[in-house]
């Protein structure tokens, strides 16, 4: 996790899931929650979801759109997209290194 995510503390992982969820288009809270559950395989509580949304919004990584009924969709900002891409590249490098070491040990 890079420094921007480190400062999110326990909200770092949920924030990453939310950014990934918003990467394919704007979603409101419930849609994000169900999408994150589908992607990660584990539920995200409403308190955690909104704790992470508030942090991401405050840091300009996502922005709220006009409410539809009482549901407010969120979308990724340009900064959010860049941050997400950098984070995923960092993780993929970490995964590649880890796999290479594990596979090297198995041989």
């Amino acid at each position, binding site marked *: 996790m890079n420094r921007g995510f480190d400062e999110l503390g326990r909200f770092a992982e949920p924030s990453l899931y939310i950014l990934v969820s918003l990467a394919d288009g704007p979603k*409101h*809270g*419930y849609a994000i*929650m169900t999408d994150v559950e589908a992607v990660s395989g584990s*539920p995200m*509580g*409403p*308190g*955690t*979801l*909104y*704790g992470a*949304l*508030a*942090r991401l*919004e*405050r840091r300009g990584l996502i922005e709220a759109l006009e*409410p539809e*009924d*009482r*549901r*407010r969709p969120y979308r990724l900002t340009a900064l959010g997209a860049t941050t997400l891409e950098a984070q995923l590249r960092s993780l993929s490098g970490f995964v590649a290194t880890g796999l290479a070491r594990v596979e090297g040990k198995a041989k």
Partner: protein
Amino acid sequence: MSALIRLYPRAWRERYEAEFLTLLEARPPTLYDRFDIVRGALDARLHPQVRSAEREDPSVPEGDRRIARVLGYAGIAGAILWPLSFLVMLAGPVVYDGDGAYRDGSAAFPFFFGAVVLMVAGLIGHLITLPRTAVVGRASALIAIPLFLLLGMGPWMWYFGLAAFFLVAVLAVTGQRAGTWSPWASFTVVCSVLGVMLIGVVGASLATDRMSGGAFFVVAGMALVPVWLAVGGTLMRDGQSVAAA
């Protein structure tokens, strides 16, 4: 469910309550979700991410905020003078009279009075920055000022001081609700005041003479140092967001 939502700070509710309730209508919360909401509310109070609309109150001009910040330095200076006055008291000569022995702490009076005046300066700073809608907090600061000045007459006016510190605790809690005090500063003040009350009760039951009573008085006085730090520190960081946490 609305009872759980009320655990969140007002600024958070103004921003997120409607959509949060819609989410909970779409997915009725499990027991884990309820625990998660309580934990989220605690986090929102300890690490606010949403600025209070009152904190953005444009009715407090920048010039007044600058004055308040200077008064914050006065509060911090009081945190130095206050314990110094107790140290001087402790170093005073032991005097014997018909009722036994006591320490003559009259040399500490200038430090004691100075610390109290600096606390008053800090409270004036809070009167400047506290939103006009925080009526209870403003009234608490306003009433505490003359009480502190009475305390400044000497330690034997401690009962005015106790009432004044209690009012500072009320100011801290209402200030936190209004978004001008951080949760930690407010918590610190409340703990200090409660701690002093506890020390007072223990001291009243255990002190056997004026010397031992004086020792409890000194301990209680030292426990109040964080109040000066919180009053001054809160003013000094005014203008920055509480949400910076």
